[in-house]
């Protein structure tokens, strides 16, 4: 099918974009989720605000150990970034599972976060890394964590007049290992389940699950247990304690164990 008619604006700056956002507008980032929704006519916005002309939203850099990713950074840029591969290996591992190469060429990091698909890889990896999400509107700016941003499947606490403009990722703790594992029927298909882990034995653990619930969420009890000396198996069991459905619990548990073991090296 073809998209329904809509008005189209392609602002050249964040300042120009902000006044255009509202309940009747849709933000077009990489288009890998919005355009299918338009084609299927599941989305019928009056106005499409295309961010692709906003160069100031496309960057990856590290300031004082904090990784800053502009919302319009392409997934392929994250995948190819040497900085990310060396210092935030969990993101490098996770992004390779996002769609296919043809999707990652256009797909953006901010788009994946704002779309909040419960089967998406980047929100899960970012949750495990305790990332913060910067939102801007004509009313000002605010910073939220994953727990506050992701409120349900395909649903975030972003207000209609807010723009997600940056993702801020704290430093990987010294000596941390990273692991990402997922199950999908074919490579690049939507994942049924998955897990992200970043671990320093005895001092730090970040674990988040994909497909275990409506939103990507950290498994805090498992993190604490792992820091306290639990095995990967024990931590994985704790991580999936409240997952509904025997099959899903078993699948998430196994993937969590693999991710933790990969992180432990």
């Amino acid at each position, binding site marked *: 099918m*073809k998209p329904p008619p809509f008005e189209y604006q392609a602002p050249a700056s964040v300042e120009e974009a902000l006044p255009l956002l509202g309940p009747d507008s849709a933000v077009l980032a990489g*288009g*890998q989720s919005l*355009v299918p929704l338009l084609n299927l006519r599941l989305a019928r916005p009056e106005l499409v605000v295309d961010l692709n002309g906003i160069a100031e939203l496309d960057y990856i850099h590290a300031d004082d150990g904090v990784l800053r990713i502009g919302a319009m950074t392409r997934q392929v840029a994250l995948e190819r970034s040497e900085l990310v591969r060396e210092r935030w290996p969990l993101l490098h591992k996770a992004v390779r599972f996002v769609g*296919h190469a043809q999707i990652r060429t256009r797909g953006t990091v901010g788009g994946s976060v704002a779309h909040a698909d419960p089967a998406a890889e980047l929100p899960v990896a970012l949750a495990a890394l305790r990332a913060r999400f910067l939102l801007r509107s004509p009313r000002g700016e605010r910073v939220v964590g994953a727990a506050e941003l992701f409120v349900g499947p395909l649903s975030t606490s972003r207000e209609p007049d807010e723009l997600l403009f940056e993702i801020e990722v704290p430093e990987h703790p010294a000596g941390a290992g990273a692991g990402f594992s997922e199950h999908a029927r074919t490579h*690049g*298909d939507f994942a049924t389940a998955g897990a992200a882990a970043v671990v320093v034995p005895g001092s730090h653990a970040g674990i988040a699950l994909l497909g275990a619930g409506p939103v990507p969420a950290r498994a805090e009890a498992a993190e604490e247990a792992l820091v306290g000396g639990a095995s990967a198996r024990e931590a994985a069991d704790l991580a999936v304690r409240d997952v509904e459905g025997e099959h899903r619990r078993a699948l998430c548990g196994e993937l969590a164990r693999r991710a933790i073991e990969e992180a432990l090296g």
Partner: protein
Amino acid sequence: MRISVEVNGQRFEEEVEPRLLLSDFIRHRAGLTGTKVGCEQGVCGACTVQLDGEPIRSCLMLAVQASGRAIRTVEGLAPNGELHPLQRAFHEAHALQCGFCTPGFLMSMEAFLREHPEPRREDVREALAGNLCRCTGYLGIIEAVERAAREMRGADVQGG
């Protein structure tokens, strides 16, 4: 909106609605029907073309977004009627039957082989995951991509 898109080196200036998909622009405005439209939701890969050299789904991009950019379609692989090594390898290895998916495979694999001139079989299989073929069972396609990679490396050596 007035847009100007370069397709296979030729400039097309057209008046389009914002909702026109790039895939439909290529087929109906540029008249290049080698690019096929399958699922129109980014799953099948039949509409894959290259945007400034990188593979994309043309059904997931608006034509207005391609203004000022360069698109390459399957017609651009054989500009003088002489088959590209990948096309020749697809022909020789029986990598197609009905052929509907083939332009998408070719445009994905041409970009892939530029980045990975010596791919391992598992890399080829992973790279093929973004294109669906309902006829061949993929073995011929894997064979064709490996054959083309060998031929293209040989051509580089001969060509210095």
